[in-house]
């Protein structure tokens, strides 16, 4: 049995799972900007702690379930499964020299470090390590390998590619902060899922989604443990990582600087917009897309393509409710990986929480109406800036499963 044998999907809701944990594909533009927003809100030190903890919890849940399902026993085999999965999912290569009492881990070409250098390295000098995600993974992997409780070990990145080191180094040490993992598995998700929704052009969207899901099933890390495709670095993340982080960051922001709560939420939406621009755009302009579907020839092709991509990536069952070209886009979804998580874990959130849905919908209007598709465009930072300045759109999330509504719904209009 391999990790892939433990993948499952809820096709009616387009949610994906690995060993019971929800997983989603994302790109480095989204990942780096999202993490940056966390640090902007709570500071570098606390942000690193929050990111490490969120990853630690998400990976502990996933790896402990995976090793149990695969009947893998013993520290060596369990660490091997974990490290191979990490690389296959595009996060980079990690090696361990650790026991139940701690030790060291080393990261080669880690996704966040390589991604940050690609996105900002030519312009910025970073002053602190970036790989809280890998640190949390390392702690969880060693704990699961040795049958320890979550939180028995702490992991800190001591040197990092982005601050000038030639590789990323991590120190694992005993900790006394054993914690309860907050995530839930697919059984809990299934129990709260609302009835499926449908939308316009669903037959077309669904046919493309099926092809894309098959295609993504074959995506795996290269020799570096990275997935380079569609002009971006792709990862398959435990969704809990993002959900824990956005919830905890907003909680801190509301408590400590409530005057910037809406700013924090708008930057989470911006992360989604960045994701939509780079990932949807990169896929729609790719030779693979051309072979599978054909190059977009009108704005509706872009909207339909965006819906299919979002479904295949595990974002949720995004459907088209209404569309007025260049004026208005209304999408509905029977939950998203953000809203269903919150429905399960928090029961009822204080505000609409499907930030990726919000930002992705805005990006779809940008791509549909402000991008020339022939010749094939390059989805650069400069183009993103131009679109943000020249073609402003606003998005309002009117419904959210996380708040008790029967579906998620977003409305995009001109600013």
């Amino acid at each position: 049995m391999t990790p892939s044998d433990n993948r499952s999907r809820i096709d009616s809701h387009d949610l994906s799972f690995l060993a019971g944990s929800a997983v989603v594909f994302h790109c480095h533009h989204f990942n780096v900007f999202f993490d940056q927003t966390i640090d902007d809100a709570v500071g570098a030190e606390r942000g690193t702690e929050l990111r490490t903890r969120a990853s630690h919890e998400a990976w502990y849940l996933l790896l402990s379930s995976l090793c149990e399902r695969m009947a893998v026993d013993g520290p060596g085999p369990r660490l091997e499964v974990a490290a191979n999965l990490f690389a296959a999912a595009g996060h980079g290569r990690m090696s361990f020299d650790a026991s139940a009492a701690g030790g060291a881990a080393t990261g080669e070409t880690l996704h966040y470090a390589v991604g940050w250098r690609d996105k900002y390295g030519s312009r910025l000098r970073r002053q602190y390590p970036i790989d809280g995600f890998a640190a949390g993974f390392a702690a969880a992997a060693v704990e699961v390998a040795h049958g320890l409780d979550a939180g028995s070990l702490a992991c800190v990145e001591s040197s990092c590619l982005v601050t000038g080191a030639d590789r990323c180094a991590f120190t694992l040490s005993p900790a006394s902060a054993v914690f309860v993992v907050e995530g839930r598995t697919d059984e809990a998700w299934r129990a709260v899922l609302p009835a499926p929704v449908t939308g316009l052009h669903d037959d077309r969207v669904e046919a493309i989604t099926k092809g894309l899901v098959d295609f993504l099933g074959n995506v795996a890390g290269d020799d570096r443990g990275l997935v380079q495709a569609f002009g971006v670095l792709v990862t398959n993340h435990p969704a809990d990582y993002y959900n824990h982080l956005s919830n905890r960051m907003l909680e801190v922001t509301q408590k400590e600087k409530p005057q910037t709560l809406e700013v924090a939420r708008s930057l989470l939406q911006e992360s989604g917009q960045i994701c939509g621009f780079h990932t949807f755009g990169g896929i729609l302009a790719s030779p693979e897309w051309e072979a599978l579907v054909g190059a977009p020839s009108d704005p509706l092709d872009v909207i339909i393509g965006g819906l299919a991509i979002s479904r295949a990536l595990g974002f949720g069952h995004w459907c088209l409710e209404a569309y007025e070209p260049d004026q208005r886009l209304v999408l509905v979804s029977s939950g998203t990986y953000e809203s269903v998580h919150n429905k399960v874990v928090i029961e009822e959130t204080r505000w609409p929480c499907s930030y990726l849905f919000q930002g992705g919908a805005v990006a779809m209007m940008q791509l549909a109406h402000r991008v020339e598709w022939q010749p094939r465009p390059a989805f650069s930072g400069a183009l993103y800036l131009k679109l943000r300045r020249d073609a402003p759109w606003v998005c309002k999330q009117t419904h959210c499963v996380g708040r008790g509504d029967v579906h998620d719904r977003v409305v995009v209009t001109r600013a």
Partner: protein
Amino acid sequence: MVASSKSKTLRIIVHLEADAPDRYAALQRLALQTGLALEALENPDSLTDEQRALIEEAAKRILGVDTLEIES
């Protein structure tokens, strides 16, 4: 002295909006880092010296520099 400090803050914000990575989000990032409302950043005259110092430090972090290259 106070007038000079105010205009320096304005120049920092202008500099940030022109040169920051992700400059479409520069003002929001500045707000989130400093804990100052966007309205306050849009009206630098209303800021205290302590708030101006917060803005300067946050701008350095966003730009990844030790000193800001703005005219004094």
